[in-house]
């Protein structure tokens, strides 16, 4: 059996590398991880995703 979460991540990664290579794969994976863990808790998911993007932007500045 394939690992379905890898299947989902794989699909997103294919789209990212093809259409949005400027987006770091770590950031995308981190967002997917947060969304996956907080499907039933939307506010928490949004907070985690926002924090991940902020961390990425901060890392760009330094």
């Amino acid at each position, binding site marked *: 059996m394939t690992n379905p979460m890898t299947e989902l991540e794989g699909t997103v990664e294919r789209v990212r590398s093809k259409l949005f290579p400027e987006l770091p794969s770590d950031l995308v994976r981190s967002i997917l991880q947060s*969304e996956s863990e907080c499907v039933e808790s939307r506010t928490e998911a949004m907070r985690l995703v926002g924090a991940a993007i902020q961390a990425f932007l901060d890392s760009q500045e330094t």
Partner: protein
Amino acid sequence: MLFLHRITVENFGPFKGIQTIDFPPEPGVVLIYGENMRGKTTLLNAIRYAFYGYVRSRGDHEIDLAKIGNWEAAAEGVYGFRVVLEFDYKGTPYELTRQCRPRPGITTPVSSLEYAQDTLLRCGADVLGPEQRDRILAQVLPEKISRFFLFDGELLQQYEELLREESNMGRQIKESIERILGVPVLTNARADMRELYRDAQGQEGKAAQRDQRTREFGNHHQALIDERTCHESELLRLAGEREALYSRWKAIEDALKKSERLKALLSERDALQNDIIVIDQKVTEKRARIRDLMVEAWRWLLHPQVHDLIRAMEVRIEVLRAKETEFAVASEKLKATDAAIDSGSCDSCKRPLDPETLITFRTRADSLRALLKEKVPAEEFTALLHRLATLKEFLAPDHTAVLKELNLSLDDLRVERATKLDRIEEIQEQTRNIDESEIRKLSSDHERIGQEIAILDQGIQGETRIIQELTDSIRRVQNQLDRLGGADLAKERRRRETCEHLLNLFDQAVGEYRDRLRSKVEEDATSLFLRLTTESDYLKLKINENYGLTIIHKDGVAIPVRSAGAEHIVALSLMGALQRNAPLRGPIIMDSPFGRLDQGHTTRVVRSLPCMADQVLLLVYEAELEPRLARNELMAQLKGEYKLVRKSARHSVIQPYTE
């Protein structure tokens, strides 16, 4: 990945005292045999209770907690019940305890309000706090997808709804399928990114407002964003209203479809009632016509006598006319005879009359005079002519044939009316207990709500167009800001661009993932289906947009209607395919799933169970699945066998199965 290790029930349903089932740690199948009313469904419910805190009946109604405790224990004064589940989730061991006990001070609880519930989740030696407990439980086996893990035969029948376009239940099942397949991970990411992108746009506008060089554009940008926010709120309101209306409309439509036959009967009855009104009108018209004709009908009875009279009168008139002619001729003859006597010569040849001829002439003149003495009765003649005219007027046209025709047609109408009335009676019998006004109300509500939805759609279209125009305007202002701007603005622009790219990434990925999933689910379901079905002419399963599966015959034609057994096989194939492709995985617990399957299919399903999930728990009765057959088919994959043994009607015991 969820894996069950042990379930302990205490005074739960028929399970009196503390009873336990251990599940072996290796993947495989565990069988629990039990005849009807021994507690198979209760065991399924115990697992459901542990995870969600409620129990459902077969009709899908929530059962009052006060009715769940063991009756014999309650009779002994022990109220309440408890379920403990020990499981691994993502490799971490947990122990979940949910118990229901009488509230303090209540000795004999009678309703759920008199019970208190405790839920405890241990991770190793630690008891998790409520927030952490709820977060983990929501991940372990989300309630929305429980139908793929805990189910019975009835639930398997519902998957046919996926083949019905616009079915409410089908839509709910589709949502559950996408949930188990992880689609919400992407759709939620997309929704979050849309929101964060909007925020970033706002932040960019505010940064522009703070800078002297870009303030004007910043103000304009902010005004456009504010305006768009207003329209988005309105769009959201309209969309929410539409969704609520659409749900009602769909529910009414489903109800109307169910009552379609009834509606057809009622329409037929209405048409029959209208026909009867038309028949009654025709009967009234025909009766009026008959009445009119009958006013003259008495004359028709006298027609023979009147005809005789007329004939006699006409004879008499002929006689009188002949006499009149005879008189005229005699009068002319007398004139000529008298002239000849007077002149003594023949009026024609002018020869003198001899005495003998003269005598003859005088004799003829006398006889003519005698004849002319009898006068023609002129008064009688006139009277006869007058009476004849009156009698002929009296003879009105004879409408006997028309009357006969009318009466026949009345008879036909009477028969037609009686037949229709009989059918109305029949329909009324069939619809005796139906609230007809309710159906009529449903129809009018359906039409009214449909019109309201159409109006909302126009509003939604208008708002969407305005939002698009505002978005384009915002984009143009952003382009101008991009050319200006300082460090602050550049930072916000990077945020906005990152969010926008992420939004577009997830938007694209949602479509691709869905397409990929559908194709994989179709492929895996087909593979499982071909293992499960005994029908060698079936080629594959074809998936639709809703994940509904249609059987395709080897000649390429879809099988339009399928039996309950085939429905089970297709549903089990879908279950297996979903398990293979789901990020969320867990045990499959099936309650009496073979009731509608013949032995051939049962054998194949049992053989394929290990392919459907790592852990399968089957609750069956022996006639449904013979233990020997299960052992032969499962062999090493059979990891445990239990039996629910009767102690009394209200007390079952869980025991390891022995022949």
